[in-house]
């Protein structure tokens, strides 16, 4: 089965990316100077509104005018899908159109911006910013906007229009006035309107239309046609089609004028009667489609040559409109399609229409157009096929953030199927989880679990994987550790189907999603090796399927595991990659990137880069606010506490550690950070001189190396260095389990403090040297900042006798509150020679084309290198690339001009 990883939503996306798409025939256009002038006037301002009933010629007017605009403008033409209820899907079609308009450079952030799952606000801001950067006007056409039924999408559109990017010219084509706050623009004079009454043809225009269609009729007949159709565009066009083939035009006009039937109905009947039978068959049997292409029409008519007929129909008149530049996909005028469907229903045998839908469903499925395949299966009454297709492809929709579409498709199934079919119940649950509707999800998950054994053998493995994936989504979102342990055990025992090679893209995506959630959850229960293995595999599958969502989640998880397992360099690289991928697609505020920011903050704090960490933690806050996961929030409190402690904001530190510990206690199973948070809480109490309270709490703290250190801290506060040295002795002798290198560093510093107080300079020197040896390799700073007295201790350390002189100096700077200016880190990936060569040309004024000339590369190759090097440098614009290249020493410093 040929499923592409990212099925294009509109066929034109596969076509020529640089040619503007304006639908409609090239031939038979009518110049309508008065309306063209209105559009011209509208195109000077932000918004033009074209409203009028079906068939009033809105689209035709706009497309014929656009063809006359010189120089040809960049046009982003959006055909809003019938009954569109999914905001994400709507914005995805807008982005496709914007990219096809030719106004967006390959290296512009708009080229990769994606409306993510539940990430609306940031997407809209980036879109508005991107459109604000346009160097020349872009005409954004929203055709059939009345089909848009999503309040979210309309609200977003209103915000975009209110922002009014200077070069954006929006044309709204709708049967009804859309809810977009247009009255304010009208009052401000920012809105140009072409309404139903304006759209009606004047007798002169009707005459021109008939002439353009090659119809020769007398002035009287034109007058009668105009009167009968009341200038209605669709009526005149339909009449022109019939007249062009009629041997007695006068009689046709007379009969039409004498008929009491409605205009459209009469004329469509005439048009159909005047056409050869094969055209009639084609129109009737393909009118069930929202869009049609030659091979599909061949299948539905059982004849060959449909592509030629469609071309002829398109060239001859306005019955059929091409929707892509290559003219391979067409759609019927909505009014015509609706009338044809009524005829088909009357003429066809009862089971014929469903059979057509099922044929179409199979064809769309084969071509990878999943949503259309499922819709036609449902219209064809084949609930089994629809269920199978949903089971195979639902992960696409969830990963694309199209839960609303998935919900609509599920709602189109017979209601009892959701309760009795384990796989469908699971999918419905996943859709609810994605919308944070926990209770409904739980009910559905319970039903799925109960119904799973009843599923046929052939369907059970995939359903089992889906169920495990949904449970993991839920457990992760709610911090349900018990369930995580259960599912992790089941995966290890091979009971879920996760980890068995699926080998098709749909399975891969499901598995990638499950592995991402599993790995992240496993890291919370410290099954770190399993977590790493699962996240690596999820990352590979996610990359293969082109899923940024999974990539960001897995990289963030891997970075977090690397941080916990004390490999700061690897952690830093992976977390930076996670952030870079998220920013590339415009999801830097999406919940999926939250944990990556959080761990990146932790790594920066460990290295003493506190100011940078502050910014990163703010981003973590913002990303996590949209979908707060309790286990991740515990982590956020921990890292905020670390930061506050390093900055000696003791009250803030205490508040953060306490809040984290209390939240960790409310989770179903203990969070690994809970005891660690308690330790830090007590250390802050000591710093606040609350020694008695800590002494009283000590017996209740879980024993271990960290508790021994805490006892030493209490002893030092009591001026009892003997007891302090004794307390840490077991840690230093390697007798106590040391979870983290920071515990050993702390023990060594406390030992050195105790030895100094006891007058044993030699032992103190040795312990400090050992502590420096542990902190230096990864540039650890943070723990040293937390130990009271560390500054004096290190200041007294003989600089001429240490093996770590530079590191010691750096630590002393940090302890004096002198944070080294944020050292530029080398990029996560190194640049290739070619990329470096291209980078060196970026400070110049040369275009990509000219750089290609200098380097003997094609412009395409230069742009590919630019894209790669931007990604590696984590930048979006040429100017940023130059700045970062300079900071990294890859480019010579800028010459300052006096």
């Amino acid at each position, binding site marked *: 089965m040929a499923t592409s990883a990212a099925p294009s939503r509109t066929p034109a996306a596969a076509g020529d990316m640089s040619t503007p798409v304006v639908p409609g025939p090239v031939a038979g256009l009518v110049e309508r100077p008065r309306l063209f002038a209105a559009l011209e006037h509208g195109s000077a301002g932000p918004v033009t509104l074209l409203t009028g*009933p*079906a068939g009033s010629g809105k689209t035709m007017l706009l497309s014929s005018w656009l063809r006359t605009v010189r120089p040809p403008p960049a046009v982003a033409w959006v055909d809003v899908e019938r009954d569109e209820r999914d905001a994400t899907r709507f914005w995805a079609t807008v982005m496709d159109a914007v990219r096809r308009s030719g106004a967006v450079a390959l290296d512009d952030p708009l080229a990769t911006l994606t409306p993510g799952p539940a990430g609306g606000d940031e997407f809209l801001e980036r879109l508005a910013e991107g459109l604000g950067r346009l160097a020349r006007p872009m005409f954004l056409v929203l055709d059939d906007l009345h089909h848009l039924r999503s309040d979210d999408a309309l609200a977003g559109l209103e915000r975009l229009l209110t922002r009014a990017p200077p070069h954006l010219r929006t044309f709204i084509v709708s049967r009804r006035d859309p809810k977009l706050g247009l009255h304010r623009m009208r009052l401000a004079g920012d809105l140009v309107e072409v309404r139903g009454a304006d759209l009606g043809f004047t007798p002169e225009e009707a005459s021109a239309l008939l002439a353009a269609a090659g119809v020769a009729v007398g002035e009287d007949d034109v007058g009668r046609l105009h009167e009968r159709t009341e200038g209605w565009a669709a009526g005149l066009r339909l009449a022109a089609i019939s007249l062009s083939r009629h041997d007695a035009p006068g009689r046709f006009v007379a009969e039409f004028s004498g008929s009491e*039937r*409605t205009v459209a109905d009469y004329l469509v*009947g005439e048009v159909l009667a005047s056409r050869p039978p094969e055209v009639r068959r084609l129109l009737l049997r393909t009118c069930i489609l929202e869009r049609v292409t030659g091979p599909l029409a061949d299948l539905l008519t059982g004849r060959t040559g449909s592509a030629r007929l469609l071309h002829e129909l398109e060239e001859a008149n306005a019955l059929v409109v091409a929707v892509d530049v290559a003219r391979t996909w067409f759609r019927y005028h909505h009014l015509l399609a*609706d*009338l044809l469907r*009524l005829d088909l*229903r009357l003429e066809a045998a009862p089971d014929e229409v469903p059979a057509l839908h099922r044929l179409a469903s199979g064809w769309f499925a084969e071509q990878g157009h999943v949503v259309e395949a499922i819709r036609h299966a449902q219209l064809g009454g084949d609930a089994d096929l629809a269920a199978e297709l949903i089971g195979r492809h639902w992960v696409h929709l969830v990963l694309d953030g199209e839960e609303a579409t998935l919900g609509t498709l599920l709602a189109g199934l017979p209601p009892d199927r959701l309760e009795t079919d384990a796989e469908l119940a699971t999918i419905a649950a996943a859709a609810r989880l994605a919308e944070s509707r926990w209770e409904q999800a739980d009910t559905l998950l319970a039903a799925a679990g109960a119904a799973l054994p009843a599923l046929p053998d052939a369907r059970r493995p995939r359903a089992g994987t889906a169920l495990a994936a949904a449970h993991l989504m839920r457990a992760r979102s709610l911090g349900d550790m018990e369930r995580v342990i259960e599912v992790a055990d089941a995966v290890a025992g091979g009971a879920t189907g996760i980890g068995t090679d699926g080998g098709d893209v749909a399975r891969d995506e499901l598995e990638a999603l499950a592995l991402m959630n599993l790995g992240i959850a496993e890291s919370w229960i410290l099954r770190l090796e399993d977590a790493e293995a699962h996240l690596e595999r999820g990352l590979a599958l996610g990359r293969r399927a082109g899923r940024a969502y999974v990539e960001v989640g897995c990289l963030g998880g891997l970075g977090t595991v690397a941080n916990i397992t004390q490999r700061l360099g690897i952690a830093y690289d992976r977390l930076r990659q996670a952030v870079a991928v998220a920013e590339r697609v415009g999801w830097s505020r999406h919940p999926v990137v939250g944990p990556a920011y959080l761990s990146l903050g932790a790594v920066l704090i460990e290295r003493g880069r506190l100011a940078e960490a502050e910014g990163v933690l703010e981003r973590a806050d913002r990303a996590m606010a949209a979908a707060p996961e309790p286990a991740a929030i515990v982590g956020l409190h921990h890292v905020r506490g670390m930061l506050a402690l390093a900055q000696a904001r003791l009250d803030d530190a205490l508040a953060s550690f306490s809040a984290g510990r209390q939240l960790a206690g409310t989770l179903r199973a203990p969070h690994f950070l809970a005891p660690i948070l308690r330790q830090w809480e007590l250390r802050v109490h000591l710093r606040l001189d609350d020694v008695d309270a800590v002494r009283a709490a000590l017996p209740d703290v879980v024993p271990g190396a960290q508790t021994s250190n805490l006892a030493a801290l209490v002893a030092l506060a009591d001026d009892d260095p003997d007891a302090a040295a004794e307390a840490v002795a077991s840690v230093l002798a390697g007798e106590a389990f040391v979870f983290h290198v920071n515990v050993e560093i702390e023990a060594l510093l406390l030992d050195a403090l105790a030895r100094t107080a006891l007058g044993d300079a030699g032992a103190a020197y040795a312990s400090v040297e050992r502590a420096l040896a542990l902190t230096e390799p990864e540039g650890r700073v943070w723990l040293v900042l937390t130990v009271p007295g560390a500054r004096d201790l290190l200041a007294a350390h003989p600089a001429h006798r240490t093996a770590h002189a530079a590191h010691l100096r750096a630590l002393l700077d940090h302890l004096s509150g002198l944070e080294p200016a944020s050292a530029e880190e080398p990029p996560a990936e190194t640049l290739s020679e070619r990329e470096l060569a291209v980078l060196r040309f970026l400070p110049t004024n040369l275009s990509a084309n000219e750089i290609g000339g200098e380097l003997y590369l094609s412009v395409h190759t230069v742009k590919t290198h630019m894209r790669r090097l931007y990604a590696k440098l984590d930048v979006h614009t040429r100017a940023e690339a130059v700045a970062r290249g300079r900071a990294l020493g890859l480019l010579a410093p800028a010459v300052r001009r006096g």
Partner: protein
Amino acid sequence: MKSTHYQITVRGRLSDSLASAFEGLTATPSAAGTVICGELPDQAALFGVLDRIESLGLELLAVCRTEAA
């Protein structure tokens, strides 16, 4: 639930195929055009009918709520 009787008038005479778009309702020619009438369970159903009228390019002349006969 109590349904309500509606009379919806559109311009022009409807062919059989057009009339078939309004299942469960009757379409009767009248002086003004065609009167589509029948029982509708609620406003949602009414708007469904109006939607169909719009998409078929019919001109809506009047909508009346009448007492059920």
